[in-house]
């Protein structure tokens, strides 16, 4: 096949890679992107988007079930709700299908050439792609590694283990997002955000869910104030959460998951499916890293503030470059690299990367938590406002949760904003903007927040920190 030469080659069309390629195309950079599966990466195909679809379906279903059980305070009744999970999955696949087509269209519109296949470095300027029709060699002035991440596997519970007519018993998040029947009993290993999001969803869909976590708390990245409403909801849904419990493996008959609690007690957790969500690992193998001299930073590729690796002309963006492994971080990195390659001066200068857990209720965190601020030697003021005092939250039957603002005591500069509550993910925009713009408590308190909305809790939290909240 005829060799391709280009100015920019992007390996991987996930959020980091495809954004990089689109932006480069817009800037007139001659760009090629290589992807072995569908464009959109983990996020669009087997991550963010499909999981949110399933979570939404599960929420709706759980509400209907509650109505049928006569537990709806608004007086809505329903009869015998049922869910056809295969149909739910088809609906979800329709969404991801539209989005991946959309990404392909955007790439095309930006003039980016898409090569489908598995890329492998030959040297720092050359990549060979195994395509359906043979090997395609691509030479590029600049190469962006955007190979992403993959679920971590436990040696005693390999993915795909114990195959049965209904598919493998041990599944990753990818497997969970393509189940066509709700398992009667689901064991979830790992109480991080992926395990909890999916565990909660399947509990709502009717599975008996047991979550096993080695640490002594759920969502270890968030403080207990933020996770407490989630713990409460887990209990209300009948999800058993075994903290400080280590997974030992499968029972010999393959019926149950074996675990050992903190007190040394052996537990047999009978399960139809075992969902392992113990984290994600960067994809640093399988694309010819051994042909290059790339410095590592632990498990990740080492990058500088311009996403440059230790080799000239080779950049890396997204999950392969480290925590937080979030799509929006990758996208901004990708955009920045495209602009750098086009000759603009750019460097990573963000003050905060928002993080959202789509648990029930949702959790948002932007910037520093109170503990992190204190650890950084700051004297701080904290303002927290509960949704139980917010009119809109009451009308939504979503009074659980709060918004919390952390600011410097001396000049009231906002250092962090966290919150937990139904639908709070959408407030993350205001939180991020406040921090990125360098807002002080007075700026937030001095902004008119529409009534009646949950966003009023944000202004009230700032007022609270200033010592004069109005509605509490």
């Amino acid at each position, binding site marked *: 096949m005829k060799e391709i030469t280009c100015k920019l080659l992007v390996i991987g069309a996930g959020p980091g890679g495809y954004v990089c390629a689109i932006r480069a195309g817009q800037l007139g950079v001659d760009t090629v992107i290589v992807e072995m599966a569908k464009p959109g990466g983990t996020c669009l195909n087997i991550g963010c988007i499909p999981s949110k679809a399933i979570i939404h379906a599960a929420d709706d279903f759980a509400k209907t079930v509650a109505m049928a059980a006569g537990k709806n305070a608004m007086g809505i009744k329903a009869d015998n709700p049922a869910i056809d999970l295969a149909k739910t999955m088809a609906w979800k696949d329709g969404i991801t299908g539209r989005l991946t087509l959309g990404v392909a269209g955007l790439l095309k519109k930006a003039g980016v050439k898409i090569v489908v296949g598995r890329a492998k470095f030959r040297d720092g300027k050359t990549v060979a792609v195994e395509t359906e029709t043979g090997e395609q060699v691509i030479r590029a002035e600049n190469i962006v590694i955007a190979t992403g991440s993959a679920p971590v596997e436990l040696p005693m519970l390999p993915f795909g283990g114990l195959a049965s007519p209904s598919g493998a018993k041990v599944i990753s998040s990818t497997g969970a997002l393509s189940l066509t029947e709700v398992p009667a009993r689901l064991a979830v290993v790992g109480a991080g955000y992926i395990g909890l999001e999916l565990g909660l969803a399947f509990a709502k869909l009717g599975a008996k869910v047991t979550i096993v976590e080695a640490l002594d708390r759920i969502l270890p990245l968030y403080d207990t104030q933020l996770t407490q409403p989630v713990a409460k909801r887990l209990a209300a849904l009948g999800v058993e959460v075994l903290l400080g419990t280590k997974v030992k493996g499968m029972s010999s008959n393959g019926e149950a998951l074996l675990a050992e609690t903190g007190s040394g007690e052996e537990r047999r957790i009978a399960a139809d499916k075992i969902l392992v969500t113990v984290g994600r690992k960067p994809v640093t193998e399988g694309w010819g890293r051994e042909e290059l001299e790339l410095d590592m930073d632990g498990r990740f590729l080492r990058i500088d503030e311009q996403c440059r690796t230790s080799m000239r002309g080779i950049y890396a963006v997204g999950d392969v470059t480290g925590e937080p492994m979030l799509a929006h971080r990758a996208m901004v990195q990708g955009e920045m690299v495209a602009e750098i390659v086009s000759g*603009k001066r*750019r460097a990573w*200068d963000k003050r905060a990367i928002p993080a959202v857990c789509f648990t029930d209720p949702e959790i948002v965190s932007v910037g520093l938590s109170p503990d992190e601020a204190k650890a950084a030697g700051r004297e701080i003021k904290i303002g927290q406002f509960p949704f139980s005092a917010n009119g809109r939250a009451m009308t939504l039957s979503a009074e659980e949760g709060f918004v919390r603002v952390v600011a410097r005591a001396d*000049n*009231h*500069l906002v250092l962090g904003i966290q919150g937990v509550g139904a639908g709070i993910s959408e407030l993350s925009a205001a939180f991020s903007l406040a921090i990125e*713009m*360098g807002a002080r408590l007075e700026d937030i308190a001095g902004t008119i927040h529409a009534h009646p909305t949950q966003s009023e809790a944000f202004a009230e939290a700032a007022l609270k920190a200033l010592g004069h909240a109005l509605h509490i």
Partner: protein
Amino acid sequence: MAEKLIKLPDVGEGVAEAELVEWHVNVGDLVREDMVLAAVMTGKATVEIPSPVDGEVTFRYGEIGDVIATGTVILKIRIAGEGAGDEEEIEGGDSGEEPRVKPAIPPVAALEQASEKKVEPLKPKAEIAASPPVAKALPHAAGAPRAEGEKPLAPPAVRLRAKEAGIDLRQVPGTGPAGRITHEDLDAFLNSQPGSGAIAAGLQPNKAVQEVKVVGLRRRIAEKMALSKSRIPHITYVEEIDMTALEELRTRMNGTQKPGRPKLTILPFLMRAMVKAIAEQPGINALYDDEAGIIRHYGGVHIGIAAQTPSGLVVPVVKHAEARDIFDCAHEVARLSDAAKNGTALREELSGSTITISSLGAMGGIVSTPVINHPEVAIIGVNKLAVRPHWDGAQFVPRKMMNLSSSFDHRVIDGWDAATFVQRLKALMETPALIFVEE
């Protein structure tokens, strides 16, 4: 040891509170009498609070931005080497001196006063007190200084601009709330950036770049010029012309002017000379359609006169110069250039030329390289008329000399033809009677 309590002074105008805007001391700092401790701001002015004593700061109340009631104790200063225990209340500024009030924009007198103070005999405290108002009064001179290791605070748009300008924001003082760096701070920093590091001389590099959109007439001129210069290989030929005789005739004609007749400039003489020369060389008065590969020789001599107007160069056209006598030519040139300057020239009056004259009069210089008005094939440039010494074979005599710089489209006019044409003009103008001879 005695402690002095410094209270927020009554800053006048009946205000009961003031905003704390600057702290100059921390707890534990040693201060000297008259040294500025803090500054507070009312709606109108900033007031500095000087120390009434020498001593050590033991207590400080309030953070920058706090609004504090008059009379609140804001500082305690332990006075070294004095008797025990007694506290003394002092209102800041009430130490036998008026509080120093600095208006937002200092009157010149204040600046002078401040600099005068510096010259006062050695009294270090006076200097300390005197210099800050000067520095502070300058716009954007400084925000609250960032503490060491503190990251600069700026919104994303400011960061982007700084990045593109190659500015390290750590160097830029921020005047916004919480020391936030605003667009104005960045402007001030960019403007104060010395090119070489030497600011002292008072010469400041101006880094301002103003973008002016090329629109309207300017864009048409730009396109026309680019077209002419890119399509036409120019040959420019310069010859000097002895204008003494023509000038003598012109002066006489203007002197014996009938009322109502226009004053004659050189242009109408040149125009008539061109008509004559063109009669012999019709190839000069032509339009070359290079795409069709056709040259159109015109019987009518339509002379464009390049004229400067407030919005740029326009070329009004004197139609059928061959059918106009010299006064008619003069009249038409005057009328058209007025119309062009006033913007009242009609479309037809600004198009249809077959040859062009470019003349800047007294600004004409010695040589120019006129750009041919596409698709014409020749342009005659008139340079400045000046008295120059001329060797007449025996001696130098003063003659009125003028150069003609003329450009020709070398694709269709050979150097020989160009030279012949200009030499013909020279002959006609040096012996102006020939211009008027009917053949």
